[in-house]
């Protein structure tokens, strides 16, 4: 699971942007390495991020973050 996340781009040190959340508490859409990927909350839980307020995106209301994947 962790290796799959990393292959898709969620590598330690990558910049991740949260885009939106699906209805009824569904999956969350992220942008990483210029690709848009969605995953369920349970899956997103194994990624830990540190916030980087310096990169703000006025056009899309989101929060940017630096990423570290927990080894599960």
């Amino acid at each position: 699971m962790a290796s799959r996340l990393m292959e898709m781009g969620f590598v330690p040190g990558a910049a991740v942007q949260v885009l939106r959340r699906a209805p009824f508490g569904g999956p969350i859409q992220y942008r990483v390495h210029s690709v848009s990927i969605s995953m369920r909350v349970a899956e997103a839980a194994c990624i830990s991020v540190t916030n980087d307020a310096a990169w703000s995106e006025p056009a899309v209301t989101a929060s940017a973050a630096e990423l570290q994947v927990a080894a599960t």
Partner: protein
Amino acid sequence: MPSPAIRSASTRPARVALIGNPNTGKSTLFNALSGMRVRTGNYPGVTVEKRVGRTQWSGRNIELIDLPGTYSLSPKSPDEMVAVQVLTGCYDEPKPDLIVCICNASALERNLYLATQVLEVDCPVILCLNMWDAAVRAGIQIDTESLSRELGVRVVATSATLREGLAELKAAVVESLTASEAVAEGASHRTCAHAAGILSGPVAMEIDRLKELLTTLGIPAAKRSPFLVTRSLLDPAGSVECLLTNDAGSAYSEALDESRKLLAAAGDEIPGVEARQRYQFISRVLSRVQKRTRAPSATLTDRIDAVLTHRVFGFLICLAVLMFVFSTIYWFSQPVSETVEGVLGWISSQIRHTMAPGPLRSLLTEGIVAGVGSVLVFLPQICLLFLFIGLLEDCGYMSRAAFMMDRLMGLLGLSGRSFLPLMSSFACAVPGVMATRVIDDRRDRFVTILIAPLMSCSARLPVYVLMIGAFIPDTGLLGGWLPLRAVVLFAMSTLGLVVAVPVALILRRTLLRGEPSPFLLELPDYHLPSMRVVLLRVWESGMSFVVRAGTLIFATSVLVWAAGSFPGDHAQQYALTAQIEALQAVDEESNLAEIETLAAQLNLQNSQLLEQSLLGRMGVAIEPLVKPLGWDWRIGVAVIASFPAREVVIATMGTIYSLGGDVDEENAGLRDTLRGAKWPDGTPVFSIPVAISIMVFFALCAQCVSTLMVIRRETNSWRWPVFSFVYMTVLAYIGAFLSYQIGMRL
């Protein structure tokens, strides 16, 4: 040193494999390169589709293999396993002669991950940067020359939708093939990954160490290529590790364990180290080769998504889109199906005019023509559904729909991708089951296929209408404004869906138990769908249905006709029919009275023949089984006869009760006859509990051979259709039993 083997163009076609991430326009490119000469099939043992195209470029025969879209050569799904195995030369076919790795030029940061792995395969590679036009529009500049130098491979920019760059790609492929054939055998086409600087440090050292070990163990060069050694180290307990350990013995697997421990201690643990090093390599290369002249701001896709995936409106829009799709399919396919039935009816009547009544005529009209009709009737719906699926998938909306519906599907233990197939099954399970191809998780797909027939399909309606019309009183609930009949109809229609929830959850926990695969779904940029690709897919789906499932459906139809006609002496039936037709030919009006008497006799004959036939005898034989459900043998016969196709039950009931087979569910005569039907001891057969038990049986039973045959086609085995049939029949029996017994006590 052996002299270079020069293969002539006419000996065997060169095998060129196309590999790439999903959503890189690979299919469009494949279709543009191979034209119509595409053969589809299955890889042995898995339900992964195989697409191979044959073409000729510059006089060379080329075989193009379209590998399934994959994110990495570290296989985690059957699709990726197939890709790895084709590249390493399993499946009794030689390795490809050339690999074309297709990337989305707008997303090289991620797409090159697979490319760096492909570069390690001992095979010439051409890098194809597809969707170049979209990259240009997004302000991305890529220096293909520099990229080519950095990676050591030819780089070609293409736009499959605009059909640009295809000539250059074809030329590059042919040149590469010619060049590689001139290379002496045994020489490697590509320097090892870590020599090119992708994998470095302790990892590279371990790979070298393992290679030396294999050399000393006497493993031939072809079986210890750098790619195989790398993958055996990086994919613990993977297929490549098993392959090499088989050949090299336990010494190798011990060495692998040692290496992994060493790397973990050095901070380069498997699997993290591969992703880290590759992405670092990619970002270094791209920093020298790619420039984004515009900051990655809110693209058009983002702006569209803000509306289409909005938490409230997005969801409503999704429902509206799907409603639109299904009503269009229904609205369009009805008249087409009716036209087809009309044509077949005309053919039947022509046959009746030219032939005297007899067994051959019956076989032709009621067996063969009806059999062909039962296959063709599904074709318009299937083609339309796949047209819509193709359009929605190609433009990128499908993944958004799966994204929004995921939580809802989670209640069934499934993922958002199951939504569309299950919704289609409400109209008809045949295209619905075929639509499960969009689900990539194997277990989810099978569960969806198994519960799809529970969705109340349109063929169940006539049964409900007949039973409700005849036996449910026309009263109103809640003070009279909510008709009881409507409530019962609604209950019956949703019964299947309600039952499907526990069934799906149980299946997921027992037979199809396994780790739920992660819902990592990529949401690609929106773009206009390519009509060529979509129409080709529609054609392929339609053809595969007719050829694979259609033949079986036709065969079953003829068999059932035979079971309902023989054994039996049809002489009187033929004589009466001939008399009626003679009178009709002469003058229908003045002979009306006589025709009607003859028709009544004919109906009686038909009823008796049905009783005597194999079908009828089966119905009588199972009467003790169906008595606890409140049914008599006539209902038993009608139900057995409707196993191939539910709609047949009405006509069969008409025949059994001597009303002729032309009645429909609205027929007042049929209703009255049913109300008046009695057991030998005089008590009425039908009552409200009996009517409900019949409806419940139909709601839950798999009485549709077409669906079962399509399940066979989609799962590539007989196990699953048989299982569907058995479990649903058991479920239906229990449901009908409970309804009747409880109903009688209320």
